[in-house]
């Protein structure tokens, strides 16, 4: 007769990955239903705000999923986000560019940063951890340089130290707005769009199949004639591109470009991917799992926040719940 832990393991093994992650999410939701903070948890506004808060992280986590499935890691996402937020703000607010042009510049910069990391990893065999760590430091430096160390806001300082005020550009207001009868934030739509695009890439394209193959067994992928190097560069490039999308959303929500934005966001993004059930070994996982991971962390933070739980307790509880969630989701 099988012991209880064995039966428990057996039960979980039979569940598909999505169901396991879903189970962890359900546990978090039940906790929320118990600690509903005078009914706040049952109002749509609470969920809408949680989704808005998690959107920027979620966009980063989508890119991170591509990279992790290909057997890599990207530590530079927070810094690239800051750089792109600053560039977008400079373009629209200070230089008066149309939003599409400023967004194009930010996307170009983000994609380029990612591609540089990818090239270092694929072509020059630098470990992903080190290459993206270097990019994390470098991109932060560039963000500080182009912004002059200050937030790029609608108060523009002249050379004589006085301020000129410009109205908040429409593109920023648009990114900070909500649609569908005020029920969904624009950035949440952006996040879901990114998730769908990444899901499509991973499950319906040749590129996606190659990412899984390389993450699973790089040598086998190479021996079977796959363009391993260019696929890797593409994975990091896409991650960089998504960082730019996240950066533009971040700037839109803060109504300014902050060169200090996104510090430690890479850890949250990695946690979201892993809690969903995508393993750091590479070769398996999905964006769907990552979306569940985003919701788990999002709800966790929201429940602790609406209950005004103290910081010490919050940190301890987050640690415990992440551990439990990962144990649920683990194969």
């Amino acid at each position, binding site marked *: 007769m099988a012991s209880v832990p064995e039966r428990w393991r057996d039960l979980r093994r039979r569940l598909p990955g999505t169901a396991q992650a879903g189970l962890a999410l359900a546990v978090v939701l039940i906790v929320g239903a118990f600690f509903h*903070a*005078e009914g*706040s948890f049952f*109002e749509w*506004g*609470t969920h809408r*705000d949680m989704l808005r*808060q998690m959107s920027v992280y979620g966009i980063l986590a989508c890119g991170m999923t591509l990279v992790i499935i290909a057997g890599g890691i990207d530590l530079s996402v927070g810094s690239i986000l800051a750089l792109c937020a600053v560039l977008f703000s400079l373009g629209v607010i200070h230089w008066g560019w149309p939003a599409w042009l400023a967004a194009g510049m930010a996307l170009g910069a983000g994609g380029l940063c990612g591609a540089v990391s990818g090239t270092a990893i694929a072509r020059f065999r630098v470990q992903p951890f080190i290459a993206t760590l270097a990019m994390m430091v470098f991109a932060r430096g560039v963000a*500080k340089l182009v912004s002059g*160390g*200050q*937030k790029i*806001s*609608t*108060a523009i*300082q002249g050379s004589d*130290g006085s*301020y000129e*005020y410009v109205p908040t550009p429409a593109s920023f207001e648009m990114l*900070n707005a*909500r649609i569908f009868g005020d029920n969904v934030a624009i950035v949440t739509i952006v996040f879901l769009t990114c998730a769908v695009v990444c899901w499509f890439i991973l499950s319906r394209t040749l590129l996606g199949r190659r990412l899984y193959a390389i993450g699973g067994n790089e040598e086998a992928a190479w021996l079977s004639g796959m363009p391993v190097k260019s696929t890797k560069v593409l994975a990091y490039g896409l991650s960089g591109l998504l960082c730019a999308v996240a950066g533009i959303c*971040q700037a839109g*929500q*803060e*109504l300014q470009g*902050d060169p*200090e*934005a996104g*510090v430690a966001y890479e850890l949250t993004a990695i946690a979201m991917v892993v809690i969903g059930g995508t393993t750091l070994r590479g070769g398996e996982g999905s964006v769907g799992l990552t979306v569940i991971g985003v919701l788990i962390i999002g709800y966790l*933070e*929201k429940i602790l*926040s*609406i209950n*005004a739980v*103290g*910081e010490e307790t919050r940190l301890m509880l987050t640690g415990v719940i992440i551990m439990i969630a990962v144990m649920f989701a683990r194969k």
Partner: protein
Amino acid sequence: MKLLHVSLWLSLSISLVSGQDSRTYTIGMSQCNLGEPWRVQMNADIRRAAAEHPELTVVFKDAQNDNLRQRAHIEEFIRAGVDAILVSPKEAAPLTGVVRDAYRKGIPVIVIDRRVLGEDYTSFIGADNRKIGRALGKWLVQRLGGRGMIVELKGLMTSTPGQDRHSGFREGIKGSELEVIFEADMKWLEPNARKEMESALARFSRIDAVYAHNDPAAHGAWLAARAAGREKEMLFVGVDGLPHEGQVYVRQGILAASFEYPTGGKEAVETVLRVLRGEKVPKEITLPSRVFTRENVEKGGDVLE
């Protein structure tokens, strides 16, 4: 003959001029981190004040929030034989030793904002967070007519500025009917403040004022309230009052007030000059703070008594 005359005059005047300029000073400035806008501003204030004195050259180092790196930076200054050291330490205990070494070697050391232990430094310059918190509390009591529901968005509560801004504020509102109905630690970060404020808005249908321990957090809270269409029903008050942050938010009508936490950069340069001239300076300089409101921001704020 005439040529000789001219050249003599020339050489004399050159030597006179260079005689005046011969005493130049190099000052080392060790900043604990440049991740905070307030510290970026401190360095900018030092740079601007030093620019008015051509005899001063300031070398800046950024310790990136690392005690040991900051210690190494000060050791480098000592070895380089700088004429004076400005230091805004990350933490007291790990940097006390190296500051003492410099001071005992006869290098004047001006400590800014955060303290070191003991007495082995030339002068300490800083503002009083507790006093600022208290003044802010009293201002809010007066502004709200003695009663109201308050949200407090606290800075990192394991840091002294966070603790002092909190306890000072509580002293300031003591005896009034101001009630803190929601408080959360936003760790000095604007996105966190917005997130916490959204929770406060979800829970409470009436909020009269938001006290944030720094201006970016007050701005984040305002963004949350605006998204909920409730920014007009409450006041937003922050601390720091930097020219490009808090003062701008006050001008734009986002904050009702910002309470300045002065950087002390300008005062540090002035103090160093006095020391280098051989004057005696006070061991402790407490910086006056100002409050910026919509009424007074254009004329530079009012000094808190």
